[in-house]
């Protein structure tokens, strides 16, 4: 059951009615029931067992931690650590069992080519569990929060299970903290504002996905499907449009999920904050997939930086480079960030994601860290006004390009294709064809002029909403202040655009969400 399908919206309507008709004390039971129904229709039947196993592991371990934490003896403390480690490792192993196929298939495939005696291990004949990367991250966060004493372990197993399977966020996140989702178990009263905001947000998400993202996808797929014909600047069109596709796809899905949760008076964490306004790659990752970045910072980066080996490296580096504080800091920085980015790439689940996320962004950040004093000096010497619009624009375009070059790995179906695409991109000089931007050649890629115009309008709308969001926090807060006829006109116009121009229905199979596979 895709979250853009008609079936999902009927299900949502049914769930909405059932939820507010349920007595307050049992509303969480209704949510659990709805989540299980959703899971039944959205994923293969037995994969729910993996979620159950994950929740059981979290439940048992967190409650052992609760009991053991009270004891003061060093033996009890050792036991607490052992329980937390076993629970975290157990969850990672479960995830790896479901997700790891691509690692061992690719890994053993490469080894097999050089050493034929090493057999290539085939993929498991299971399709993975829906949202495995997201719920595993949530469960690990919950266990560590219990271990660190930041949250009180949940004593009711079914309530904890609801935290794992809560249906709007199950497919593509956001990765929620247990402390932020305690509201799942509270009484909720129907609110007109929540209903309006929820529906508006869902509509905006559907617009992003069905009108913009899937249209951009047609152009990109058309180019990559026939790289012998589409040479020169065509691959660059695909490369430069892909961030737009992945953003409208992922953030569109997020809008639908956050809107759906809002209908139930549940406010999930935001995952995006205008990432393409970022002035650096570092800032980009604070605005893009925010909950994954926050999760990796708190549960991976901080513990790694504070671990004994990294602290020892820091002390050694401080002693070795006494005169150069920057170099002394750079070494532990590189180690800590190396682990952080490896986990970020590994979470995405394949060798090509490790290259596209871990290696690419770690290298870019390392280079910018090394050259930052030089660039600061250069900016001073050239008397650049760093607060000017033009400088901001230059920095944002630079960040966009860096991201676009990295996610080429994301757009390819396999590692070899991804590497091949870089070759094609840098081959553009051999087939210079700048006229394709003006002579209507792009309309041969499966889209018409009307589609291109619609895309331009869509991008303009996205930009306007992004600007409003930067200024008011939320575009809809601004919208709420407008007069009734204007508000209704905008929402109805958006609804009609989605209805007429959305790529759905017979003849169209709405593309699955890119981030659904994680």
């Amino acid at each position, binding site marked *: 059951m895709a979250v853009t399908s008609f079936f999902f919206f009927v299900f949502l309507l049914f769930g909405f009615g059932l939820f507010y008709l349920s007595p307050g004390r049992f509303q969480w039971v209704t949510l659990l029931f709805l989540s299980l129904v959703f899971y039944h229709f959205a994923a293969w039947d037995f994969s729910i067992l993996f979620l159950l196993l994950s929740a059981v592991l979290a439940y048992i371990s967190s409650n052992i931690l609760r009991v053991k934490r009270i004891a003061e003896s060093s033996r009890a403390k050792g036991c607490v650590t052992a329980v937390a480690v076993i629970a975290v490792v157990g969850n990672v192993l479960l995830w790896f069992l479901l997700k790891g196929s691509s690692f061992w298939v690719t890994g053993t495939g490469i080894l097999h080519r050089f050493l034929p005696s090493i057999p290539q291990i085939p993929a498991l004949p299971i399709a993975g569990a829906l949202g495995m990367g997201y719920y595993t991250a949530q469960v690990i966060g919950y266990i560590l929060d219990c271990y660190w004493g930041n949250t009180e372990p949940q004593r009711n197993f079914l309530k904890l299970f609801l935290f794992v399977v809560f249906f709007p966020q199950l497919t593509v996140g956001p990765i929620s903290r247990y402390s932020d989702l305690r509201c799942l178990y509270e009484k909720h009263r129907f609110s007109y504002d929540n209903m309006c905001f929820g529906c508006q947000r869902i509509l905006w998400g559907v617009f992003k996905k069905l009108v913009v993202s899937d249209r951009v996808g047609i152009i990109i797929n058309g180019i990559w499907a026939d790289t012998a014909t589409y040479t020169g600047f065509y691959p660059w069109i695909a490369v430069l449009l892909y961030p737009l596709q992945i953003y409208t796809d992922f953030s569109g899905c997020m809008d639908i999920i956050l809107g759906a949760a809002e209908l139930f008076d549940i406010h999930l964490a935001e995952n995006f904050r205008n990432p393409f306004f970022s002035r650096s790659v570092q800032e980009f990752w604070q605005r893009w997939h925010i909950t994954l970045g926050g999760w990796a910072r708190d549960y991976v980066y901080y513990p790694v930086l*504070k671990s004994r080996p990294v602290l020892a490296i820091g002390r050694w580096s401080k002693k070795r480079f006494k005169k150069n504080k920057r170099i002394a800091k750079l070494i532990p920085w590189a180690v800590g960030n190396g682990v952080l980015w490896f986990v970020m790439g590994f979470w995405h689940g394949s060798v090509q994601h490790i290259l596209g996320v871990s290696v690419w962004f770690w290298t870019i950040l390392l280079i910018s860290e090394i050259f930052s004093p030089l660039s600061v000096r250069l900016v001073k010497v050239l008397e650049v006004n760093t607060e000017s619009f033009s400088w901001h624009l230059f920095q944002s375009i630079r960040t966009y390009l860096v991201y676009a070059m990295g996610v080429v790995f994301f757009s390819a179906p396999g590692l070899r294709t991804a590497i091949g695409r870089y070759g094609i991109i840098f081959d553009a000089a051999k087939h210079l064809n700048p006229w394709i931007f003006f002579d209507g050649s792009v309309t041969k890629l499966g889209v018409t002029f009307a589609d291109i115009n619609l895309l331009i309008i869509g991008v303009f709308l996205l930009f306007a909403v992004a600007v409003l969001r930067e200024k008011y926090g939320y575009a809809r807060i601004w919208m709420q202040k407008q007069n009734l006829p204007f508000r209704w006109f905008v929402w109805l116009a958006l609804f009609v655009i989605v209805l007429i121009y959305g790529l759905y229905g017979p003849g169209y199979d709405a593309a699955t969400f890119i981030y659904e596979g994680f």
Partner: protein
Amino acid sequence: MTREEVYERLNKVFQEVFDDDSITVNDDTTSDDIEDWDSFEHINLVVAVEEEFSFKIPMGKVVTMKNVGEMVDIIMETGK
């Protein structure tokens, strides 16, 4: 140890970590107020505070600390 005494020593720690003698912090200071205070420097700061006040800040507090005021509360609870 009074709050003032803690701040006197804490200011020196901040100045040393961020290499800036003009830094003075108060209860409401957050990472938004100091330009270089990112997640990496956050841990450098935590380690420097641990060394200065001879105690270990628990990982749970490292993650949840929201401002310098909370850091001072932790120091006053267990620091020396």
